């Protein structure tokens, strides 16, 4: 056995492993084959387990300011190409930047929420590089005096709390977009995005797995949405990140050589890219190779990272220097206090409110908090109904699964909070059964959101009869119809109540209020004894 595993470790080093393995399996009994497979997996696992992955992230969050970072052009996403551009966005001769004060405020907001030190004289620098979608030939960014320094974000992975320290946060502008796949001969440039403000959140190398990175970005995204400084929309590129990854033997304190994966556009891809890259690096090291510091890109289709730039041979020298066209921005204590006072509520505060004021469970509160707009929707429902628990149930179950199935977000949801409150009210008033409301009325209502729930329930013939008089007549009819069963019931076969209920419901077409019917049945059956 020992001889075999030794043989195997040798084989692992070669690419012909699989073929050899199959070949081998012809000669060994199945059980041995299985054992060998198991050993291989264990060895592989052990090999991975020898190493620790060290990750630092640079997360770019696009701010949702009305105008761009350094000029008055609209910053909105989705306009026709090159319509949000002026002489300044196009870097025409003689134009100068000026700082968007709202972008500064947003940066301070995030800094305060993450416990950063706010830099009192924050400055801008130029990062020089040529590219067709970089109109000035440099990016206005912050290098020596970033607006926020330090800070931390707590994350929870596998039930354990972990603190991720931040190095700094800086304010910068986005580039335009180069489009290479529309015209076969030319690349097209859209400068609408050029100059849109970004915050770059740079972490310390505190993350240890793709999963942690996933959770970190998720939490950060949640936070910026609560702070109302970004829409956090991954599809529109509002959040992108660069992942710096290195590996080192467990117990080692020195950092390994890192590779940077640029421009990863989703949490899931960040996780995949990190996991792939860590495995790749382990493979290289295990083979006795070394890691070159390089920039890589992630191919989301195949799930691989690919080299794009080898730093030693072809490093970008960005020639950072202080931006002479922008004076340092001086932030006073009063200013920072004002920003602090006007901070929107953070998830933790809202959670407390949900639990204390609305009496929600920890679970319900957490589900709602995942999405800021969900919380807002919830609060709006509660403006129209006092049944807080039902409102939470509707959102976390019915509405959430509907949105998931149709790949929609809550702000794309057709029904208003008031309509949902109406539905809840109808159930509470016994006009509609809960099941009919959620399974019959709701699916129809989302198709015709302008119809009132009451009208629709009427059309669907689902309105319950709660009028005791008419139900009583029905109950009497059923009782009269089954004298034998009545006798049996009165002789102790109390289980027959279910049968009577079934008959009443059947006769009414399911429209009578079951509570009322049940009560009446019981009264009539029991009273006659």
């Amino acid at each position, binding site marked *: 056995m020992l001889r075999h595993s030794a043989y195997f470790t040798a084989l692992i080093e070669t690419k012909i492993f699989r073929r050899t393995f199959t070949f081998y399996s012809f000669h060994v009994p199945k059980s041995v084959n299985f054992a060998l497979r198991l050993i291989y997996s264990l060895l592989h696992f052990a090999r991975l387990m020898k190493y620790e992955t060290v990750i630092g992230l640079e997360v770019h969050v696009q701010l949702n300011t009305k105008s761009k970072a350094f000029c008055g052009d609209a910053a909105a996403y989705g306009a026709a190409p090159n319509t949000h551009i002026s002489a300044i966005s*196009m870097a*025409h*001769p003689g134009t100068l930047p000026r*700082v968007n004060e709202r972008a500064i405020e947003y940066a301070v907001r995030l800094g305060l929420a993450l416990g950063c030190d706010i830099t009192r004289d924050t400055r801008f620098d130029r990062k020089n590089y040529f*590219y067709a979608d970089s109109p000035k030939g440099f990016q206005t960014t912050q290098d020596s005096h970033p607006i926020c320094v330090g800070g931390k974000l707590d994350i929870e992975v596998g039930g354990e709390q972990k603190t991720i320290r931040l190095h700094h946060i800086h304010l910068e502008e986005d580039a335009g977009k180069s489009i290479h796949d529309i015209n076969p001969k030319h*690349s097209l440039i859209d400068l609408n995005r050029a100059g849109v403000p970004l915050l770059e959140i740079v972490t310390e190398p505190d993350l240890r797995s793709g999963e942690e990175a996933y959770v970190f970005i998720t939490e950060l995204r949640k936070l910026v949405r609560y702070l109302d400084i970004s829409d956090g929309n991954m599809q529109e590129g509002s959040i992108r990140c660069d992942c710096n990854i290195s590996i080192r033997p467990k117990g080692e304190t020195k950092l390994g050589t890192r590779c940077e994966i640029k421009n990863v556009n989703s949490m899931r891809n960040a996780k995949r890219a990190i996991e792939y890259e860590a495995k790749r690096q382990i493979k290289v090291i295990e083979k006795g190779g070394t890691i070159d510091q390089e920039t890589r890109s992630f191919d989301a289709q195949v799930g691989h990272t690919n080299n794009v730039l080898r730093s030693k041979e072809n490093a970008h020298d960005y020639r950072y*220097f202080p931006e002479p066209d922008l004076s340092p921005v001086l932030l006073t204590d009063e200013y920072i206090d004002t920003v602090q006072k006007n901070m929107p509520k953070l998830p933790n505060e809202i959670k407390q409110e949900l639990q204390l004021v609305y009496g929600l469970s920890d679970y319900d509160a957490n589900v709602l908090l995942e999405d800021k707009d969900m919380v807002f929707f919830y609060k709006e429902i509660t403006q129209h109904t006092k049944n807080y628990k039902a409102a939470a149930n509707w959102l976390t179950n019915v509405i959430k699964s509907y949105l998931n199935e149709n790949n929609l977000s809550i702000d794309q949801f057709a029904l208003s909070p008031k309509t949902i409150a109406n539905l809840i009210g109808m159930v509470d008033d016994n006009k509609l059964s809960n099941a009919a409301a959620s399974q019959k009325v709701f699916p129809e209502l989302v198709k015709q959101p302008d119809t009132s729930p009451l009208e629709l329930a009427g059309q669907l013939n689902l309105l319950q009869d709660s009028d005791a008089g008419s139900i009583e007549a029905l109950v009497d009819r059923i009782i009269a119809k089954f004298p034998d069963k009545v006798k049996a019931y009165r002789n102790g076969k109390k289980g027959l109540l279910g049968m009577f209920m079934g008959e009443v419901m059947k006769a009414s077409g399911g429209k009578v209020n079951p509570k009322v019917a049940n009560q009446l049945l019981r009264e009539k059956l029991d009273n006659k004894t």
Partner: protein
Amino acid sequence: MLFCTQKKCVFFQNVNTLQHIQANLKAGQTTLTNIVEQYLVRIEETQDLNVYVEVFAAEARQRAAELDRKLAETPNQIGRLFGVVLSIKDVLCYKGHKVTAASKILEGFESLYTATAVERLLAEDAIIIGRTNCDQFAMGSTNENSVYGPTLNAADPTKVPGGSSGGSAVSVQADTCLLSLGSDTGGSVRQPAAFCGLVGLKPTYGRISRYGLLAYASSFDQIGIFGKSVEDVALLLEIMAGEDKMDSTSSRKAVEAYAIHTDYTKKAKIAYFDTAINHTSIDPDIRQQTLAFIDRLKADGHRVEAVDFPYLDYIIPAYYVLTTAEASSNLSRYDGIRYGYRHPEAGTLQETYEKSRSEGFSKEVKRRIMLGTFVLSAGYYDAYYAKAQKVRRLIQDKTKEILSEYDFILMPTSPSPAFDLGEKTKDPVAMYLADIYTVQANMTGIPAINLPLGTHKSGLPIGIQLMANMFEEADLLAFSKYIEQLNRQQV
């Protein structure tokens, strides 16, 4: 009726300040239309000097007619610059007009907006008659580095007018307009003013908005003014100065009434540097006349003292490291992608950059871009850029210290009178060194002015330079006016 057929025009000699022109206009002795015609004739006559890159003749005529009507119909609504006809350097944006920085890279480029400074002049009823030749992207001290060829000095057409705002200087020198706007990054207004015998002001950094001024070195650039009288220059400054939301480096400091506040009755405390007056590069006649001027000031009761300034020889190297660094980045936008010159045979992005920029920029501009790129590069940054910034700081501190004790610093403007054409083109370092007296004001941001001092033994004009503390333009201009009168008495 005034006629102006000879090279030296009687009209312009007699009526050479705005005050006179406005008086004549209001008295109905002439019209703006008439004045514009005279200037257009002068422009025609002085074509050989290669002053203008473009003359806005039709537009100037039309505006003059409109303004004449305005004077007739609503005389109390005319602007403070009614009667001012001026030229602007080809680095200032004027909506709907071409601006090229005398470079092929901006071939055919038309500005979408008007520079704040120009906008403010137009709002006070000034007329812009054309844009003037200059060194490409304001880089040069001779006006020879222009895609349009050199401008010639009207005092002697075998000489350069100085640079980089040479065209602007000669436009005033040759009476083709009353006043002109230039830009001054290291002396580009004061040195040509000295070479052409004019008043040339570089205000405090941040006093005039730079919005719409094509950048050479952003932390040094300032729009400057050429004129024949201190009073006119003061008025133009007063109107252009002040905060501009489009330029975050423009100062919020209130603008003083520079044009009115021009009587200097105090006895001034003036510093000069021995190292400057006795510098190896100084022309002996300029040295002698500067010393004689100092004696005259002393005789008039002012305290003029030599002070120690140990950094004179560090000024030029530090200045060229910092300005080229900023220029290398400022000029990156001229890439052939969105506007201006694109090489017709460029296929790929890389080729577009390489070919358009190689052909679009002049040799001197490319030299400075490369120098600036080098001093900012990894591995050289600390030795050059960072060190030059420290030198700048030392010079700023020392200058501030001197100006806390003295009202003004006095210096020659240039170590020599106007160069021969072609004299400095072969040796860029020699050209750079000729900026020795002017760059201190740009390094430190303080205001500085050239005033005509007299005539060199060669017959060329020479100037004297005065610098004052930050935002002390009112004092600087008042004292300048006093010197103007002192010189007049002398003549």
